């Protein structure tokens, strides 16, 4: 353990890769980690503007955030990421896997290709990423995968994303057991409904948000920043005893009957 006392929650001296780290929850995690002292490499793929925006915030605040644009579902993209990590330094002390995609449709409308697209990024790319980076993780490292309610609960038109998150969680738990003897912890962070621009832009957003809030004991949606604090805890030495756990950050919605 590198920190002590009040510093246990600090990420100083840690080098952490955030996959899918430039938008929404991923962006909040990249910023929170860097503000907590970590050196962050934020991976992204399509949204160049989001990458630029994160870079601008990092420059303004003097945060140690590097960007790496790479498609984690392709060999070429993984090689590119590997090169970036090589330039960045030999070791990693953390990985947060936020990269995710999916399609929300009834089963009759879903195709094999929808399945492949979803599982390729949400599950297979994480598997490949762990294979690629395994040797870089030193003792005391922490890996966190972002999951969602759909891994354990049935939600409308969520069968593909939900089942991919279920597979991701199962993979994370098996890795937790396999990597724990080497001092590498793997945990799962499940976020409930997070207030993001995407939520605000949905049709009938006000009534949808109101309905979710009604079912949430906290009386509001959680924020991306609050999820980021959960991720910080799981990547900090304060959670050194936590292995293979699912931390649910949903304002209490999940305990409602």
């Amino acid at each position, binding site marked *: 353990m590198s920190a002590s006392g009040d510093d246990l929650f600090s990420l100083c001296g840690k080098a952490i890769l955030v996959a899918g780290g430039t938008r929404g929850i991923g962006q909040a995690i990249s910023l929170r980690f860097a503000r907590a002292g970590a050196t962050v490499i934020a991976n992204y793929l399509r949204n160049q503007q*989001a990458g630029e925006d994160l870079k601008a915030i990092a420059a303004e605040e003097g945060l140690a955030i590097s960007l790496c644009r790479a498609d984690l579902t392709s060999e070429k993209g993984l090689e590119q990421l590997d090169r970036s990590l090589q330039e960045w330094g030999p070791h990693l002390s953390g990985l947060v896997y936020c990269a995710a*995609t999916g*399609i*929300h449709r009834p089963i009759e409308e879903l195709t094999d290709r929808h399945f492949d697209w979803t599982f*390729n990024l949400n599950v297979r790319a994480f598997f490949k990423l762990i294979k690629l980076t395994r040797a870089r993780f030193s003792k005391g490292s922490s890996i966190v995968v972002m999951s969602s309610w759909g891994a354990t609960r049935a939600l409308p038109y969520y069968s593909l994303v939900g089942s991919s998150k279920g597979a991701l969680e199962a993979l994370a738990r098996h890795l937790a057991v396999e990597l724990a003897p080497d001092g590498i912890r793997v945990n799962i962070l499940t976020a409930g409904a997070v207030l*993001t621009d*995407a939520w605000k*832009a949905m049709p009938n957003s006000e009534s949808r948000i109101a309905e979710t809030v009604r079912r949430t004991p906290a009386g509001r949606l959680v924020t991306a920043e609050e999820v980021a604090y959960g991720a910080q805890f799981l990547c900090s030495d304060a959670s050194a005893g936590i292995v293979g756990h699912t931390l649910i950050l949903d304002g209490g919605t999940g305990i409602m009957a």
Partner: protein
Amino acid sequence: MSESDYVLSKVQEAFKAAFDVDPQLVTMETSASDIPLWDSVGHLSLASSLEEVFGITLDVDELMEMENVRAIVRIITPKLTEKV
């Protein structure tokens, strides 16, 4: 109507289906930053809508290149020629 105008109008149709946005707001300059629902999940909905509207198939590499409307039009236009 020129070919690019035709493709853009169909792309607007796909955006309407995927994100319920006013088609007139979708221009060649539109990117993911302009449409909050166009995140990683929304991207697959958009890809499916584009496939349905145009009757084409997009491969993963093409999906990944579609970061704005201009790129979408560039990727789709030759596919329409292939169909003819």
